[in-house]
C-alpha cells in the first residue's frame, strides 16, 4: 500500500508550468532585472572562479592543503603563467594538479553543452597522450588513474552530446561528427599503447581496454546521432553515412577476432616443468574457469552473428538498424572482453605472489636441491 502511494506521488513529478507561461515569464523577469544587471565576461572574474574551483575540488578530495598550495602557487606564480606552465605537466607531478584544476575551471566556466562536449574530448585526448607517456615509463599505477579520468571525460562528452541533441538539434550533427572522428583517432592511440604494453605483460592493459570500450561507446553513440539526424533531415549524405557505419562495423569485427583470440589465449592449456620433465597441465584449471570460457566463447559467437546481420542491413542501406545491431554486438562482446580482463588480472596477481622472493636461512637452503625441481614452473616460450 505504501509503495503504491509513493508511486502515485512520484507521478506528480510530471506537473510543470505551461511552456508558454515559462517562456513569457522568463522574458518578463529578464527585462525586469536588466536595469540592475551587469555584463559579465568569463575573464573578468577569473580569480573568483578559480578560487571556487579549488575550494570545491579540495573539499571533494578531503585535502584542503592541496587546494591552498595550488592557490598560493597561482597567486605567487602569476596565475595565468603558472597555468600555462602546468599545461605540459605529467601525471604524478605537483603541477599536474594545477593542470587538472585549470581544466576543471575552464569546463566550469563553459555553459554551452556543445563547447563542454568539445572540451571533454580535448581533455580525453590529453589523457591518451599522458597514458602513452606513462606506458613508456612503466608507471602503471598512475596510468590506471589517468585511464579512469579519460573514461570520465569521454562519458561526459557523451552526456553533453545528448543534451545538445535535446536542446539544439541543429548543431548536434556537426558535434556528433566531430566526436565520432576524434574517438576513432583516440581509439587508435590507445590501441597502439595497448600493443606496446602487451609485450611487457602488464595488467594495466585491462585498464586501457576499459578506456577503449568507453571511447568506442561514445563513438557509437555519436554515430547514432548522425544516423538519426540523417533519417530526419537529410543533413548527411548517404555515401558519408555508409562509410561511417561501415568503418564502425569493421572495428567491431576486428574486436570480435581479438576477443576470440584473447579468450583462447587466457583460458588455454599451458606447459609446466616438473621432476619428470615437461608436463602439460589441463586448463582451464577449475570448473569456474571452464564455465567462464564457455560463456565468453558463446558471447563472441553471438556478437559475430549480430555483426553479420548488421552487414546485411548496411548493404540494404538500413543505417539505423545497422547501427542498432552494431551497438548490440558491442554490448555482448564487451561482456566477453570484461571476463577476459578479469582473468588477466587474476593471473597477474597469481604471478606476482608466486614470484615473490623468499629470504631463506641456511637450513632452508640445504633443502633447496629437492624443492626447486618441484616448484619451478615455466611455460615454454616464456
Amino acid at each position, binding site marked *: 500500500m505504501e509503495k503504491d502511494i509513493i508511486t502515485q506521488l512520484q507521478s506528480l513529478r510530471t506537473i510543470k508550468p505551461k511552456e508558454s507561461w515559462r517562456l513569457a*515569464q522568463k522574458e518578463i523577469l529578464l527585462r525586469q532585472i536588466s536595469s540592475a544587471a551587469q555584463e559579465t565576461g568569463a575573464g573578468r572574474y577569473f580569480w573568483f572562479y578559480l578560487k571556487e574551483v579549488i575550494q570545491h575540488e579540495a573539499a571533494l578530495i578531503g585535502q584542503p592543503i592541496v587546494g591552498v598550495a595550488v592557490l598560493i602557487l597561482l597567486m605567487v606564480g602569476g596565475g595565468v603563467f603558472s597555468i600555462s606552465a602546468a599545461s605540459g605537466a605529467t601525471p604524478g607531478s605537483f603541477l599536474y594538479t594545477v593542470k587538472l584544476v585549470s581544466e576543471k575551471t575552464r569546463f*566550469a566556466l563553459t555553459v554551452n553543452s556543445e563547447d563542454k562536449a568539445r572540451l571533454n574530448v580535448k581533455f580525453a585526448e590529453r589523457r591518451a597522450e599522458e597514458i602513452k607517456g606513462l606506458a613508456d615509463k612503466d608507471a602503471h599505477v598512475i596510468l590506471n588513474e589517468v585511464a579512469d579520468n579519460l573514461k570520465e571525460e569521454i562519458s561526459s562528452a557523451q552526456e553533453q552530446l545528448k543534451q545538445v541533441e535535446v536542446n539544439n538539434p541543429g548543431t548536434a550533427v556537426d558535434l556528433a561528427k566531430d566526436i565520432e572522428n576524434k574517438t576513432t583517432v583516440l581509439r587508435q592511440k590507445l590501441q597502439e599503447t595497448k600493443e606496446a604494453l602487451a609485450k611487457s605483460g602488464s595488467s594495466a592493459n585491462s585498464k586501457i581496454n576499459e578506456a577503449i570500450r568507453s571511447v568506442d561507446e561514445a563513438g557509437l553513440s555519436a554515430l547514432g546521432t548522425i544516423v538519426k539526424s540523417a533519417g530526419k533531415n537529410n543533413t548527411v549524405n548517404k555515401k558519408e553515412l555508409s562509410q561511417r557505419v561501415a568503418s564502425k562495423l569493421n572495428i567491431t569485427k576486428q574486436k570480435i577476432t581479438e576477443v576470440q583470440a584473447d579468450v583462447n589465449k587466457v583460458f588455454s592449456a599451458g606447459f609446466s616443468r616438473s621432476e619428470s620433465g615437461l608436463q602439460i597441465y589441463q586448463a582451464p584449471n577449475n570448473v569456474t574457469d571452464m564455465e567462464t570460457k564457455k560463456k565468453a566463447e558463446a558471447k563472441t559467437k553471438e556478437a559475430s552473428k549480430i555483426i553479420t546481420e548488421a552487414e546485411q542491413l548496411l548493404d540494404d542501406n538500413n543505417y539505423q538498424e545497422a547501427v542498432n545491431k552494431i551497438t548490440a554486438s558491442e554490448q555482448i562482446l564487451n561482456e566477453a572482453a570484461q571476463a577476459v580482463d578479469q582473468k588477466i588480472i587474476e593471473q597477474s596477481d597469481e604471478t606476482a605472489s608466486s614470484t615473490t622472493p623468499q629470504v631463506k636461512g641456511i637450513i632452508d637452503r640445504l633443502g633447496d636441491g629437492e624443492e626447486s625441481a618441484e616448484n619451478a614452473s615455466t611455460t615454454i616460450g616464456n
Partner: protein
Amino acid sequence: MLKSGSLQEKILVGRLKLKDKEAFSHLYDFYLDKIYRFIYFKVTSVSEAEDLTSQTFLKIWQLALEGKIKVNESFQSLLYKVARNLVIDYYRSSNREKNKISLEEAAHIAEADAHLDQAADVKIEMEIIGRRLKKLKSEYQEIIILHFINELTIKEIANILEKKRGNIRVTLHRALKALRDAQ
C-alpha cells in the same frame, strides 16, 4: 547538466551575486519546475502558483542585489525558503483558507494535466492523490512534496525547514500515514 550543490551551480550563484543576468537565467531554467511544483500544491489555482513562482525568483534577484545571498548557504535551500515564506505571507494577507478544495482546484489540476500526454486512468489517479495531498496540513504537505515529488534528501529538507533530520524522518512517516488515511 547542472546539479544542485555542484561546482557549476556554485559558480552560477557566484555570478548571480555579481548581478549576472545570464547566471540568473540558467538558475531560473534549472529550478523553475521544482519551485512551481512546490507552490502548486500549497495554493488553490494555477494563476496563484504562477504568480508566487515568479515572485520567488524576483525575490532571489533582490537578495542578490542586496548582497544577502550567503556564501556557504545552499542555493536550493534558499529558494525553497523564499518560496515557502511567500506562500505564508500570501495566505496571511489574503485570509484564505489554505486547505479548502474547490471546483476551481479540480479544474486547476485537470488544466495542469491537459498538456500532458498520459492515459486517462493515470490522470485520474494523479487527480485523486493531488487532492488528498492538498487536504493535508501544511507541514505534511511540504515534506511529502519535497521528498517524494521534488526528490530532496532528508538532509536537504532539514536544511530548508530548519529542523533536525530525525524530526524530518518522523514527520515524513506521519505525513505518509495521514495521506493514506485522507479521503
